[in-house]
């Protein structure tokens, strides 16, 4: 039951609610419209009136345009998303019925009204068909471009393809209807206006048909693309599986395939070291470059000289170190007086400190070399068990 009493009331209501309705209609797809937001625009009392008149419907914290009105707006403004083939079908049935009535009716006045209805329905069919074709195209493109889920994408495209076929059938039916099926009606009732309507309808049908052929191509291409894509995906999974099982090389033609590929991609990145041009280095430009490099090589920070610590004052004081000195001169004097041979004398000598055997040997050698003129070195040799020595006597 309608809550609006007359058409005048409806038009008036739509008029004063226009701001809100326009706003809500524009946002119908983007988000649910909040009751509070609507109240901001209209005022709550007016909003309640709209809800009471069932132009709007309240849904929890949200309000939406009543479905009936929304569809009405969409249809009139030709922005509907749904492709509704049943609607055309219904119109075709209606045309058929009215044609039957027209042919059976004898009353001229009533016949005229049937004829008018047929014309209206035919006009509608043309418009709706064309509209449907355009919507179909847009939907297909949207689905292909925006639907992220591949399974759903394929299903949607296939169902749209189904719809395309249905629309195509309806076009054929309509065409059949106006050319062959109701030949009697279209010859007897043909007046100027009907001729125009049929002509227009034929034009629209042809246009729709051409569009549909294009659509069909599009759908097939899209479906192929999607399917190709999922095949690629499938392939990647399979290859990856084999790789993870370490079977890829054995069970596929990978090695063979790689053998054929000589793409540079596979090579390690080459470097091309070039020698400097000696001629260039002689020029001013070359000189500048050399300077630049030299600057770069120069170390910015010079290592500071290591400075020794200052000398402690204690270290400056004279110190005495005592060393017991073996006076070779004294040994020589003693030796000259002793009448023994040198080796024996040195070994027996009473040193001012402890002297080791090696030192004594050293002293022996030093004595011989220093005071050679004072001694007589015999050809005779003796052995003390460790070293063999010449017998040396004082002169």
């Amino acid at each position: 039951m309608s809550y609006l009493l007359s058409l005048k009331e409806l038009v008036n209501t739509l008029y004063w609610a226009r701001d809100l309705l326009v706003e809500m209609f524009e946002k119908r797809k983007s988000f649910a419209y909040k009751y509070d937001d609507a109240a901001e625009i209209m005022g709550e009392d007016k909003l309640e009136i709209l809800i009471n008149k069932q132009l709007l419907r309240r849904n929890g914290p949200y309000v939406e345009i009543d479905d009936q009105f929304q569809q009405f707006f969409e249809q009139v403004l030709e922005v509907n998303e749904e492709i509704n083939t049943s609607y055309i079908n219904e119109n075709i049935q209606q045309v058929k019925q009215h044609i039957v009535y027209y042919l059976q009716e004898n009353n001229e006045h009533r016949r005229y009204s049937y004829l008018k209805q047929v014309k209206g329905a035919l006009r509608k069919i043309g418009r709706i068909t064309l509209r449907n074709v355009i919507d179909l195209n847009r939907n297909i493109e949207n689905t292909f471009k925006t639907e992220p889920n591949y399974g759903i994408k394929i299903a949607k495209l296939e169902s749209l393809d189904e719809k395309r076929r249905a629309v195509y059938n309806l076009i054929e039916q309509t065409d059949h209807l106006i050319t062959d099926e109701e030949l009697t009606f279209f010859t007897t009732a043909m007046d100027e206006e009907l001729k125009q309507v049929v002509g227009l309808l034929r034009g629209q049908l042809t246009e729709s048909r051409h569009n549909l052929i294009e659509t069909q191509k599009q759908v097939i291409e899209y479906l192929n693309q999607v399917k190709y894509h999922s095949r690629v995906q499938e392939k990647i999974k399979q290859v990856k599986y084999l790789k993870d099982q370490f079977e890829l090389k054995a069970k596929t033609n990978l090695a063979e395939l790689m053998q054929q590929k000589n793409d540079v991609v596979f090579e390690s990145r080459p470097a091309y070291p070039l020698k400097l041009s000696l001629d260039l280095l002689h020029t001013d430009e070359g000189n500048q470059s050399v300077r630049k490099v030299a600057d770069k090589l120069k170390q910015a920070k010079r290592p500071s000289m290591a400075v020794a610590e200052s000398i402690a004052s204690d270290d400056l004081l004279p110190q005495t170190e005592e060393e017991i000195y073996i006076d070779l001169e004294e040994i020589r004097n003693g030796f000259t007086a002793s009448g023994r041979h040198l080796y024996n004398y040195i070994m027996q000598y009473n040193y001012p400190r402890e002297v080791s055997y090696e030192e004594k040997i050293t002293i022996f050698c030093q004595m011989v070399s220093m005071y050679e003129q004072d001694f007589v070195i015999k050809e005779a040799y003796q052995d003390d068990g460790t070293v063999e020595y010449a017998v040396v006597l004082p002169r």
Partner: protein
Amino acid sequence: MNIPNRHTADIFEWLSKGKFICSNSVEDSSRKLYTVIEENFDDLYHYFMAIGFVLEKGDEYFYFSRTEARATLENKIEQAYRWIDVVDFFTAFNNGFAPGFRFTPSDIMVQVKIDASLKDKLEIMKRLTGDGSYSDRISTLVEKQLVAPGYAELENEITMQYKVLTSFNYIKQLIVSIQIQEEIVHEIPE
């Protein structure tokens, strides 16, 4: 022989390092090179052929190959193995990981946190990513395996947004062209 144009040196410089020149590169200069190659493909092809490089045309990208092998087979297979891991990881991160796709390392981080199998894949790739926190590893992976070889470029430094380049198709194509023995395919679990 005439040098085809003044961009030849740049093209050589870029391609001889094993990189790609892509049509959807973030850099203007790189896109410019793409157009240059596209317009002078035949000339450049012959020119580079004379110095031992084959200019190859892929799906919206160019690269160099050689007439004879320079890399050892083992190296190539090893490289392919690495790519399989990398591609598998990124497609597991997002189905739509393909040229033109944009992502940030933090997107991947979020996904790694909620997806155990993705985390597992990242764990396994330690050889490529090194140790460190997950976010470090993801950054390394993106930088070393995608950006350095030229499969992706940093598009926005502030948001750290990367863009996948057309060259990514190269590795994808490579994987697709691996033929698995017929009877083996059925043994692979879904």
